[in-house]
């Protein structure tokens, strides 16, 4: 058992947990949290792959590291967009009455409910 394998198990467990959270969480914000957990599990898996690929004097293979960095940034933007959606959804739910939403096209395709 080396530490890469250990973190590999960790990533497996976290992926499972994240997936479970995504399935059972009723609140969208919690789903976003679970998605982030799941994502970090996946990134950790990349980290394990990178660590195992240590060579040429490097502590870890740089390619998976770069992929993770890209992945983290993408995951953040996904989170930001999803959070904005959640907030907008709850704002609209609170408003209830569509009057405050001065949308000129509102009548155009009525019957959306």
């Amino acid at each position, binding site marked *: 058992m080396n530490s890469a394998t250990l973190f590999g198990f960790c990533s497996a467990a976290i*992926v499972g947990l*994240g*997936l479970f959270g*995504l399935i059972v969480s009723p609140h*969208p914000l919690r*789903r*976003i949290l679970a*998605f982030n957990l*799941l*994502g970090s*599990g*996946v990134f950790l*898996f*990349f980290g*394990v*792959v990178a660590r*195992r*690929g240590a060579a040429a004097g490097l502590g870890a293979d740089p*390619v*998976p590291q770069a*992929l993770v960095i*890209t*992945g983290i940034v*993408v995951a953040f*933007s*996904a989170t930001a*967009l*999803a959070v904005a*959606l*959640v907030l*907008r*959804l709850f704002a*609209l*739910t609170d408003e209830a009455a*569509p009057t405050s*939403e001065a*949308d000129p*096209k*509102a*009548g*155009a*395709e*009525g*019957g*959306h*409910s």
Partner: protein
Amino acid sequence: MSTASVATTSSGYLLVLAVMWPVIGILLSFVVSGRQIERLAWIVLPVGLVIAGATLIAVTQAGQSQIYVVGNWAPPLGIALRADGISVAMMMATAIVICVTGVFAHGEFSQPPGGPEERAPVVFWVLLFAIWSALNALVLGSDLFNLYVALELLTFAAVPLVCLKGKKETVEAALRYMLFALIGSVLYLLGAAMIYGAYGTLDIRLLSERGHAEPATLIAASLMTIGLLAKTALVPLHLWLPPAHAGAPAPGSAMLSALVVKGSFFVIIRIWFDAMPDLLSFRAAQLLGALGAAAILLGSVLALRQQRLKLLIAYSTIAQIGYLFFVFPLAAGLATGVAWSGIAWTASWLQLFSHAFAKAAMFMAAGLIAEALGHDRIAELGGIGRKLPITMLAFALSGLSLVGVPPSGGFSAKWLLLLATVMEGQWWWAVVIVLGGLLAGGYIFMVLGRLLASPTEVPALQAPVSRWRECAALSLAICAVLLGIWPLQSSDFLFIGR
């Protein structure tokens, strides 16, 4: 196959342009003021179409894949773009649908003269560019992580499109879509990580040489496939599709249904037929086919039971996606060179393209009808056919293509698919295909019957409908029909590069 060094081919630069040209549009859109964005679109769209056409010609003339090694860093370290027969076909279809959508959206998403910059037009045009760029990146990418980024680009472009109207239902739909698509991307990424861990490369061509069936590969493949299925909305992973596609504005729905779901499907094809060609076991192929069959039945029956036109079309999309998945059981022999799988291969692409055109046309027609009537309740559509004959014709032609009435792309696709089921001895798919056609006939005629009815009181149009927009929808429907003159046999073109 050998590990021959990958080198940029003479027309390779076109691939870079195809991906980056819309990106230039996106970047410029941020800095020019609102009214300029649509003008920008009138430059971006035709040039993009030309690029797609040039790539098509280049690949056809060369008779082999066109490759661009980005930054001259050859895989596995770098990334290559590769255009084979299916990618250029897809590029061309994308370009046509996007351009016509652009024409269709003109007017609906124009900045009003004089006033301040408005939200919807700015967002719409940027998303249109983004979808285009993402799809080109998806069909040209030959690196699993590059494809991941392209997939995310596509998702991020599609989600805001769903809730462009800003209504509660659409925001809810967009959120569902987003979260479900995110599960999909994460699973895909996990699969990619495993692939890298096993083979030290993400390049599809290299993987096809190195890959072999071992546990890591199997799990990775299933993770990636299911992740992509979630984005493709194959039953039972279709929860997000109906509200999302029905809630988006018409040009948005057209792109979502015609193109966006096909993007992730394309990647599944890449994985199974390019990256790991000998991995597709009989059982797995049957499983995917069975899901497709379930999609056809469920989607068609539910389409029949819808009361709103846009929802009906959305459920029809679910059904039509199902047909695409017969490519796995029927063309599985492609890798081993079994003669008949070529037919299923051709059929599936034909289905994809004809559905893309037909569905885009249908959503546009539905959008026009909804705009004209102020609602899209099927029961109250009576007589609109007389008011909007061109729209109705567009709907009818694309509907008939979905049903599989000759001469149309839908018919050719269905014919070839059925032929393939017979040849492969997998008659059970034929039953589903035929049944699906019947049900499609049911819901199409249900709508056509209403459109054609002449109630005593013909509804008054709430808004004038521009002739141009009607013609845009019609032109796509005609494209779907014209695909029907594709020769009814396996097409060499779609085999370029494989």
